[in-house]
C-alpha cells in the first residue's frame, strides 16, 4: 500500500500485494499496467447504449431514449482486475451486456486485441464469445433448473467442440468442479440441490470451461451471505493467478471492489466519473460523487466510527432518459457552478494524479486510513 509513506504499519498489506503481483501470470499485466506499453486486451471507446422509449401499441412511436451507457472509455489489461462501481441504474450492467455481445452498442467501439467487436461476425464473433465469459449476479436465475450440473458446465463445448474432445468431457467437467471447490461426484445433481455459494461456483466453472481470457463478473457476490462471499472472492483471486484471467468486476459494494481490483472506475448515470488505482480512488478521491459515495459507506471498526466526514447527497439520481446538461452530477453537487451546466467535464487528470470528470476536481481524504 502506498499509504505506507505516512504510516509504516501497513506492512502486511504490502506483503500481500507483492505476493499477488509476483504470482501474476504475465509481468505486463495488472500492476504496471498504467506505464506499460503492451497492448491492452480490451478497450472501450466512447461506448454508448441508448434504449428507445416507445409509446402506443399498434403504431409504436419513439418518444425518447434512455441513455443507459453514454460515452464510456475503459481499458482492461491481461491478468488485470478492473473494478466498476456505481449505484443501481448507473448503467454498469448494460456495460457488461455490451461486453459479452448480448447487446449491440448504439455508438462507440469495443476493441478486443485491437479488433472491433461491434463489427465482428461469424467465426470471429464466436471466438470472441468464447474468450470473454460472464458470471451473473443471481445464482438462482442463471442456471437452468432442468439441466444437471455436468450438462450446465459442459454446454459450451457443444458449440466450441475443439476445446474438449467428446471422449474426455466427463473427466474435464469433474476437474472443473473440483477446481472451483465442488465435489466432482455432484455432476449429476441439479442446481436446486446446491446452496447460493455453491451455485455461484457452478457458474464460475461454466465460465472457465471455455478457457476464457476475460471474465465479466456482474455482481458475482452480491446475493451471497457474508461468510460465503469471502470464499467466492478468494476463489476468483486464485483462478486469476492460475489461469491469468482478466476480470471486469462490477459491483455496488465498494469494499469488495477495493479488495479485489487493481484499478477502479466509478460510474454515474451512464459515464465514468473517476478512474484510478484503488489507492487513487479510495485514498484520494477527487470527484464529488466518489467522495459522497465513499463517505456513505459504513465502517467496520469501532474506533473509526464518527471519524469520517459525512457528505450527504440531496435528492435522487436523475432519470437517464432526461439527464442534466453538462455535468451529469451537477444537480446533486455542492461544487456546481455555471460552467457545469454548459460543459460536460472530460475524464482527465487535472493535477490530482488520476483522471476525474469534474471541472473542480480536488483530491481529498474521505475514508480514514486504517491504523
Amino acid at each position: 500500500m502506498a499509504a505506507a509513506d505516512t504510516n509504516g504499519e501497513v506492512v502486511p498489506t504490502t506483503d500481500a500485494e507483492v505476493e499477488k503481483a509476483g504470482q501474476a501470470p504475465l509481468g505486463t499485466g495488472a500492476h504496471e499496467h498504467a506505464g506499460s506499453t503492451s497492448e491492452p486486451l480490451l478497450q472501450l471507446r466512447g461506448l454508448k447504449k441508448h434504449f428507445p422509449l416507445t409509446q402506443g401499441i399498434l403504431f409504436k412511436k419513439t418518444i425518447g431514449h434512455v441513455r443507459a451507457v453514454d460515452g464510456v472509455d475503459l481499458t482492461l489489461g491481461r491478468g488485470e482486475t478492473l473494478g466498476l462501481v456505481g449505484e443501481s441504474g448507473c448503467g454498469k450492467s448494460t456495460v457488461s451486456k455490451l461486453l459479452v455481445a448480448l447487446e449491440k452498442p448504439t455508438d462507440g467501439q469495443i476493441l478486443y486485441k485491437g479488433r472491433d467487436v461491434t463489427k465482428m461476425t461469424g467465426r470471429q464473433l464466436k471466438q470472441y464469445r468464447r474468450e470473454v465469459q460472464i458470471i451473473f449476479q443471481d445464482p438462482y436465475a442463471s442456471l437452468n433448473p432442468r439441466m444437471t450440473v455436468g450438462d450446465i458446465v459442459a454446454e459450451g463445448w457443444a458449440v466450441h467442440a475443439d476445446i474438449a474432445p467428446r471422449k474426455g468431457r466427463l473427466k474435464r467437467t469433474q476437474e472443473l468442479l473440483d477446481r472451483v471447490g465442488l465435489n466432482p461426484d455432484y455432476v449429476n445433481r441439479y442446481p436446486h440441490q446446491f446452496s447460493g455459494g455453491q451455485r455461484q461456483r457452478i457458474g464460475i466453472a461454466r465460465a472457465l470451461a471455455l478457457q476464457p481470457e476475460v471474465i465479466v463478473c456482474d455482481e458475482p457476490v452480491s446475493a451471497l451471505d457474508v461468510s460465503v462471499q469471502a470464499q467466492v472472492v478468494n476463489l476468483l483471486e486464485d483462478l486469476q493467478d492460475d489461469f491469468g484471467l482478466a476480470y471486469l468486476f462490477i459491483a455496488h459494494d465498494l469494499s469488495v471492489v477495493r479488495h479485489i481490483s487493481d484499478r477502479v472506475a466509478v460510474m454515474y448515470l451512464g459515464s465514468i466519473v473517476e478512474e484510478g488505482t484503488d489507492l487513487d480512488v479510495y485514498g484520494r478521491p477527487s470527484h464529488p460523487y466518489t467522495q459522497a459515495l465513499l463517505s456513505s459507506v459504513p465502517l467496520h471498526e469501532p474506533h473509526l466510527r464518527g471519524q469520517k466526514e459525512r457528505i450527504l447527497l440531496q435528492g435522487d439520481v436523475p432519470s437517464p432518459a432526461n439527464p442534466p446538461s453538462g455535468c451529469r452530477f451537477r444537480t446533486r453537487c455542492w461544487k456546481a457552478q455555471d460552467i457545469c451546466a454548459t460543459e460536460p467535464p472530460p475524464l482527465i487528470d487535472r493535477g490530482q494524479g488520476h483522471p476525474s470528470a469534474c471541472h473542480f476536481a480536488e483530491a481529498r481524504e474521505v475514508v480514514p486510513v486504517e491504523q
Partner: protein
Amino acid sequence: MTHPSSTAAAVRGPGDPTAVLEVDDLHVRFRTDSGLVRAVNGLSYTVGAGETLAILGESGSGKSVSAQAIMGILDMPPAEITTGRIWFEGRNLLDLPAEEQRKVRGPGISMIFQDALSSLNPVYSVGYQIGEMFRAHRGTSKKEARTLAVELMERVRIPAAAERVNDYPHQFSGGMRQRVMIAMAIALDPKILIADEPTTALDVTVQAQVMDLLKDLQRETGMGLVLITHDLGVVNEVADKVAVMYAGKAVETGTIDDVFSRPAHPYTEGLMSSVPQVEAKGGRLRPIVGQPPNLARIPDGCSFHPRCSHRRLGTAARPGAECSIDVPPLRPVLPGREAACHYSEEVLGGRG
C-alpha cells in the same frame, strides 16, 4: 451516539426494569414437508428506551423470524411458538388473546421491512396508507388523517409532501418508499421500532440518508430500535449493542465496541475477518469454511462446530465441553459480555 451504562448486555431475567421490550427464551419452529425446521432456538434480549440493539446474522439465522414472532405476523401454522415470553410494558404478549395483542402492538411496537415496494399496497395512495394508522387506532376522520399523513411525510423528509400525498407507491424511488414505510411505522409514536434489513435493498448513499433519518427520529422520540441486519458496517455505525445470531440462537452479545474489537465467539471472529473493508485493501480474506446449517438439520452440540476453527473434539476437549456433543450455553465471558462457546477465553486471547 449514546452508550448508556445500561446497555451492558444484561440479557437474562424476566422483568428487567430498564427494558421496554424483553424477549425471553423464544423458540419458533415450522412444520414443513421436509421436517421440523427449528428457526429460533432460545433467543433472549432486551431493548431499553432510546437504545439500539442490532441483531446480526446471515440468512437463515432466524433473525427475521424472531422479529415476526414479536410482531405476531408469523403464519401459524406452519409456524408455532413452542416456548418463550415477549414482555412489553410489563405484559407477556404471548399470554394475551389475539385481539388484545393487536391493541398493544398496534401503537406500541411497529416494524419496517426490507422491500418497501411489496410492503406497501399498490392500489392505495401513500397518504391513505399512512393515514390508515390514525383511522384504525384513533378513529380520526379521513380528512384529518390526510393532514396528519402530510405532517408525517414532512417528518421523514419527503420533499413536497403536500403534493405527493396522493401519489401511489410506484411513483416513488426506493429510498422515498422506505421513508413512506417509516412514516407509517412512527405514526402512532411506538415505543419500539423493529427494522428488518431496512437498507439492504438501497444504494449506499440512500442507505446513509435512511439510517440518519432513523437515528434522528429515535433521538426525537426516544423509541427503542431493533435493527436486524447482516451488514457489519451498519451495525457498527448505528447500534449500541449487538446480538450475533447463528442457527436460531444468540451466540454472542455485548456492546458494539466490545464485540467488534474483541470477538468472543469464533463465528463473530470469522465474520469480521471475512468481510473486506473500504478503509484498506487488506490481505487475503479469511472466510468461514462451509455453509450455514440447514435449520431442519442443525448439527448436534455447538451448531457452529462443523465450521469452527477453535473446535475441540474427542480427547482434545475439556470434559463436558466436547464441541460436537455438548451444547455451549450463552454465558458471561467478560463484564457485560456473553458468548455461547466452550472456548471463548481462547478466542478472546487469540486476537488480543
